[in-house]
């Protein structure tokens, strides 16, 4: 599965306004609503679920990246949005580092495989320092989109 | 039968073709080549400059391992030599084995 299959480029938030974890998550959820990926009346519920899950176990992957996710019946297929902040947010990642890039994923309840394929893709690329570095350098939604498209085309790069 | 015609029959035809599809002469194209070659009444030998192979043998053709850009010399001998050469050229260079050329090239 490639980024283009689940990442909503229109919803990208190149500079998150929130300075803490919970507001960053809410911001990303609302970005998905604005892009028409989520119904607005479920936004609150979804954001709360993501935050709850995040409190139980941080999805901070280390090296400044976090991948909060949740399963919810309101989506038919995996949808994700990327948000970034230059200031860094505390996600209680146990490596005690701040998080700069957040990829929020909402997955359908009944297709666990789609979620796994998306996670595999995320893991694969986020493992690479080059990718993370370029990601941090993106300032506009177009830049993010270009980077992810390039990653999709060069899976072994 | 007149001697002259026999001699003509024994003459072969020869051509050099270039592999134009991106993935080269992998299994599927090799199969198409062999199937086509086998339809003609003549002997067909294909050479990549280092080895020769029987154009009607899938094993020989795959062993040639001809990648994109490789030039192959096809030699046919027998009654349908000319027809065979023409058909094979069309398959390799015109139809390109019904496969795409490399990205960015025509």
């Amino acid at each position, binding site marked *: 599965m490639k980024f283009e299959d689940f990442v909503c480029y229109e919803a990208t938030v190149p500079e998150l306004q929130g300075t803490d974890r919970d507001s960053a998550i809410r911001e990303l959820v609302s970005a998905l609503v604005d892009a028409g990926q989520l119904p607005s009346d479920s936004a609150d519920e979804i954001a709360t679920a993501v935050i709850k899950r995040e409190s139980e176990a941080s999805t901070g992957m280390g090296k400044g990246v976090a991948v909060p996710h949740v399963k919810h019946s309101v989506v038919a297929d995996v949808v994700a949005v990327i948000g970034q902040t230059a200031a860094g947010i505390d996600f209680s990642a146990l490596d005690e580092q701040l998080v700069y890039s957040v990829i929020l994923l909402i997955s359908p309840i009944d297709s666990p495989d789609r979620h796994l394929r998306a996670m595999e893709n995320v*893991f694969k690329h986020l493992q690479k320092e080059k990718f993370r570095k370029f990601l941090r350098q993106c300032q506009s939604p177009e830049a993010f989109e270009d980077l992810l498209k390039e990653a999709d085309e060069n899976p072994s790069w | 039968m007149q001697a002259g015609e026999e001699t003509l029959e024994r003459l072969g035809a020869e051509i050099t073709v270039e592999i134009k599809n991106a993935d080269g002469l992998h299994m599927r194209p090799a199969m198409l080549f062999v199937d086509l070659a086998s339809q003609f009444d003549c002997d067909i030998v294909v050479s990549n400059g280092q080895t020769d192979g029987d154009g009607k043998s899938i094993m020989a053709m795959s062993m040639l391992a001809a990648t994109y850009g490789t030039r192959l010399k096809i030699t046919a001998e027998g009654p349908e030599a000319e027809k065979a050469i023409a058909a094979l050229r069309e398959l390799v260079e015109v139809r390109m084995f019904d496969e795409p050329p490399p990205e960015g090239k025509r």
Partner: protein
Amino acid sequence: MSRRLKARGNGLGQDSEMEIKKGIAVSPGVSIGKCLIIDSEDYRIPRREIESSQRMVEVQRVRNAFRDAIGDLTELESDQDQTGGGRIKDIFAVHLRFLRDRSLRRRITDLVYSDSVTAEYAVSTVLRQIASHFANVKDTYISERAADIYDIERRLLKQLLGHKREDVGRLREEVVVVARELSPTQTAGFNKAFVKGIASDAGGRTSHAAIVARSLGIPAVVALEDLTEIVHGGDTVIIDGNRGLVIVDPTEETISQYEVYSQEFVALEHKLDGIREKPAVTRDGATVMLLGNIEFPDEAEAVLQKGGDGVGLYRTEFLYLNRPTEPSEEEHYRAYAQTVRVFRERPVVIRTVDLGADKYTQSKRFAPEPNPFLGLRSIRFCLQNLTMFKTQLRAILRASVLGQVKVMFPLITNIQELMQAKMILHDVMEDLDEESIEYNRDIDVGIMVETPSAALTASTLARDADFFSIGTNDLTQYTLAVDRGNELVSTLYSPADPAVLRLVRTVIQDAYKAQIDLSVCGEMASEPEFVMILLGLGVRTLSLSAPMIPEIKQVIRSVTLEDCNVLTRKVLGMNSERQISNYLRNAVRKILPEAF
């Protein structure tokens, strides 16, 4: 290295000459038996030469095999129409063309004639030649086809060998296994009731053959180089796992000498068994926990019998090998449940699947990697195959209510891998919660420290891991850049190398600072000469193969921690592996002379 001795009235026929071959002793004991030769494809390729008069028969067998294989494939190909796998159909079509290619068949039958060999041998030889021709082409698309050729080879061999295939899992008599080398796939079927010894051409102290032999408690000798070329199926061989000798076609005199020697050795083992009930405590009161390394649930009992306090390393790869499909969650669960029940409240550390550089990940489903040991193996493979990974984690979590289960991730090289793995574990816990399935929420999650990068960043990893287990086999391999299975360099492989010892020390110190548990589970833990240095470095938990537990316990009970500390200080000041190795060996020889 070999010496030929003239047979003296041994009644074995005029062609037999006793031959003694020297290799590396990797598992103690003596075994005298008939040998079974295993080929790398898990088939026993019968003796190669045939009589000239047999050639026609063999040629006909080749033709029949082709005919039957074509029949099978044609059926399979038409079945594919329904399931709509256009690409799969293509593959069958191509394989069929190959099988119908007369020049291929001719090449094989020509070989039967020219060299007077069996159909199987001819098929295998010709197809492998073709496969290697493909594999050497730089274009990956084409070189991948080598896998297709191997598939065709298997198909033809299946026809030829049919019922005659020597399935190691279905042995009915005692044998000694001889192979070029043994992969986990092949040894997964070994039943110790029938497999009495192992000898391989390749390998070293920590190759798979060695590990399996030690687990099963049978003698093994490796790195014999060309044993498979001089021995024939059914020959009598003696495997001397103490001295590292394999004797082919022994004289009667030699056999009786060995029988006496073997009895003496068994007596020593019994003496060691006597300390089963005694605790593993040094003379000055330091307690060491001794756990077992296992691969199959059947070995669990052996660990207890030998005095182990639990399982420090449960290798789970065998569940995936020797089978065409992945194991189901139930199959996982059954194996883990069976094991955990044997140990009850004693710890069982289950390591998630550590496949790689092996048939499984290199099969034709995936493009073969040029450097599998450094490639997508083990935890990396799992993180790219989450469905499979989650299945195993589910089973481990479900089994965690039955006893004291801990989960361990192999080959972790950086914190991201650990975080990702823990994230998936958490996802699995969520799923189980939703399904109201019980599991131990507080299960300990640890890692194998077996790469230089993990060793050097152990302090960071320690923040997120509940325990470490040092995998000295791979750690030594990666640190010294030596392939432990390569008989040409296996003597370079040594945990006594100062570089390795320094890394081990770093890990132990970092674990101690972070106050997390630490154990050593590589082969180093089962070697008497390393007990003192490990204790001196601060290790208090060792996990090793069951048969060696009594001997290691004996060493522990014979030393003082004080002496271990002194020894360790001296060793840390040494710079040469040879010096360290000799020093350690001498030290333990003084304590336990009969082990040598």
